[in-house]
C-alpha cells in the first residue's frame, strides 16, 4: 500500500474539517495579531524595539496555535469515537500520529508568519538570518505540536486538554526567555527554563534575529530534536497503553 496516501488524506481531512474552518482561520490570524500588537505597542520604544520582541511573539504564536488545535483534532475525535476509525485502518500508529500532527505543524508555522509580516512593514528585517529562522520556526512548531499531542492523549475531555495546555503554556511565556533573558530569572527558576523546549526555540530565534543567543545553534537544534523524539515517543506509548487497552 502507498503509505503516503492515508497520510496525505488524513492531513487533508483535518485541514478541511478543522484548520480551514472560519473560526480557526480567524483564531490563527487574530491571536498572533493580538500578541504582536500588544507587545509592539506596549513596549512604547518605537519600531527599533521590534526585532527584540519578534522572537518572543513568533514563538508564542506558534506555541498557542499548535497546542490549541491538537485538543480538537485528537481529544475531540477520541471523544466522539471517530479516532477509532483511524486505529482500525491498516496504518502504523507512528504514521497515523504524524499525519494527525502534520496539520497542526503547518498551522503553527503559518501563524508564525503573522508577526513577521507585521515586522516587515514596521522595521528593517533585512539582517535576519532566514536560513536559521525558518528551520527554527519549523522545529518550534513540531515540538509545540508534540507537546500538544502529549497533553491531548493524557486527558479525555476537550476542556481538560485546554486546561492542561495552559498549565504548560503560561509558565513558558515567562520561563523560556521569550521577552527577557533566562539569565535575568531568579536562580532557582533557571533550571526549570532549561527543562522547557521553547527555551531552545526562543534562543534560536534570538540568535537569528538579534544575534543574542545563549547557546550554539547546533545545541539548540539538537536539544529540540531530542524533545520532539521524547514527546512523540511518550505520546505513542500513552496511546498504546491507554487507548488500545
Amino acid at each position: 500500500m502507498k503509505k503516503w496516501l492515508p497520510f496525505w488524506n488524513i492531513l487533508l481531512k483535518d485541514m478541511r474539517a478543522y484548520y480551514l474552518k472560519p473560526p480557526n482561520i480567524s483564531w490563527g490570524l487574530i491571536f498572533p495579531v493580538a500578541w504582536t500588537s500588544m507587545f509592539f505597542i506596549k513596549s512604547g520604544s518605537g519600531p527599533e524595539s521590534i526585532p527584540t520582541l519578534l522572537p518572543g511573539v513568533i514563538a508564542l504564536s506558534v506555541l498557542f496555535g499548535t497546542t490549541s488545535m491538537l485538543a480538537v483534532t485528537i481529544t475531540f475525535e477520541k471523544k466522539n469515537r471517530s479516532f477509532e476509525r483511524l486505529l482500525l485502518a491498516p496504518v502504523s500508529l507512528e504514521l497515523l500520529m504524524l499525519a494527525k500532527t502534520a496539520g497542526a505543524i503547518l498551522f503553527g508555522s503559518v501563524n508564525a508568519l503573522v508577526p513577521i509580516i507585521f515586522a516587515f512593514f514596521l522595521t528593517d528585517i533585512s539582517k535576519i538570518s532566514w536560513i536559521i529562522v525558518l528551520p527554527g520556526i519549523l522545529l518550534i512548531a513540531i515540538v509545540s505540536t508534540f507537546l500538544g499531542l502529549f497533553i491531548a492523549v493524557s486527558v479525555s475531555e476537550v476542556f481538560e486538554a485546554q486546561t492542561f495546555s495552559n498549565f504548560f503554556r503560561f509558565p513558558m511565556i515567562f520561563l523560556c526567555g521569550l521577552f527577557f533573558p533566562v539569565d535575568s530569572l531568579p536562580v532557582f527558576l533557571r533550571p526549570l527554563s532549561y527543562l522547557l523546549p521553547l527555551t531552545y526555540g526562543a534562543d534560536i530565534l534570538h540568535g537569528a534575529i538579534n544575534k543574542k543567543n545563549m547557546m550554539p545553534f547546533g545545541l539548540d537544534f539538537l536539544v529540540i530534536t531530542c524533545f520532539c523524539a521524547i514527546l512523540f515517543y511518550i505520546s505513542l506509548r500513552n496511546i498504546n497503553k491507554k487507548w488500545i487497552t
Partner: protein
Amino acid sequence: MKIIETISSADTCDPLIEVINLIEVINLTKKFDEVMAVDNISFNLQQGEFFGFLGPNGAGKTTTINMLTGLSRADSGMLRVAGHDCSKNPKAAQYMIGVVPDESNLYPELSGFDNLCFCASLYGISKNERQRRARELLKTFRLKEAADRKFSTYSKGMKRKLTIAAGIIHNPQILFLDEPTTGIDVASARQIRQLIADLHHNGTTIFLTTHYIEEAERLCERIAFIVKGQIVHIDTVKNLLQPLQQKKIMLISVSNSAHELCNKLAGAFPDFEFLPVSAEQLRIESEKPIRLSPFFRFIEDHNAEVTEARRLSPSLEDIFVRITGIGASILRKETEKKGGAA
C-alpha cells in the same frame, strides 16, 4: 497465509471437507480491573459464514470484537484473523476486515460522500477508485440524495447505513457488525438486515453481535450464546432448533397469577411442561398434541379465566432461554432502553 483444516461436518454428505478458518479464537480472556469481560472463550469462523454472537449487554460481545479488530489487547489466549496473529500484529489483519461499531463513528463535518472517500483512502485506494466505490455504495444503500449533506444532518438510520457502507468500502473479506440495528426505527432496521443479508450472499464472511434473538435467527448460520463473558453454547441455527421441531407449544393468557397456576398445573398434568411467561401468561409444552379443554376446565376450577390461547412455533428464543436461563424479556428491555425497535 490461510489456515486450512480438514474437519468432519455433520451438515454435509461429504465426511471430509476442506474448510478455511478466517477467524480462530482459542482460550481468549480479557479482564477489566476485577471484571472478567471475556472468560476463556474459543470459537472459529469459516470463510463465507454468517456467525452471530448473541447475548445481553455486558456479555463480552463488543470486547471480543475489539480484540479481534485490534482496538483492544487480550490478556491471554490466541486469536488469528485471516491467518495473522492479532496479539502480535493486529495491523496485518486490518486490510482484510471491515468494522461497523455499535455507534456511528464517522466525521460529522464531512459529507456522506467525503466520509466514504476518506475511509477508502485509509486503505490506500486510489482517488478514482474510491470515488467510484463511494458512489456505488451510496446508491446501494439508498443514500444518493444525501451524498453531499453533512453526516451530522443524517437521521439515525441513515447514519447507521453510511457507517456500514464505510465498513465495506475496501471490500473486506470479513465484516464485523456490532449491534447494527440497535437504536434505529423498524423500517431502517429491516432495510439494514436486507443489506447485510445481501452482503453475505455476495460472499462476505460476517461476524454479527446482537441482542435481538429474531435478528440472529433470521440472519445467522451459526450462533454462539455468550453470557457473562463465557460462551455457553455454540451451534448452527438448524441444529439449535432441531430438538424443538417436534415440540408443541401453547401460550395461554389467564386472568389470575400465572406463576401460581403453573405450579398447580404441573402437579395435575405431569406429562406436560408449564412455564410462566409473565404475570398473566403461561406456556404449555409437550411432545404430544395438546388438547386444551382439560386445562381450561382445571384453570376455571381454580377460580381463574382463560382469556386467550395461541399456538406458538418453536423459536431460537426458546432455546436461548433454556440454555442461558436469561428471559428474552430481559433482552427486550435492554433494547427498549437503547431506544431501538426489533
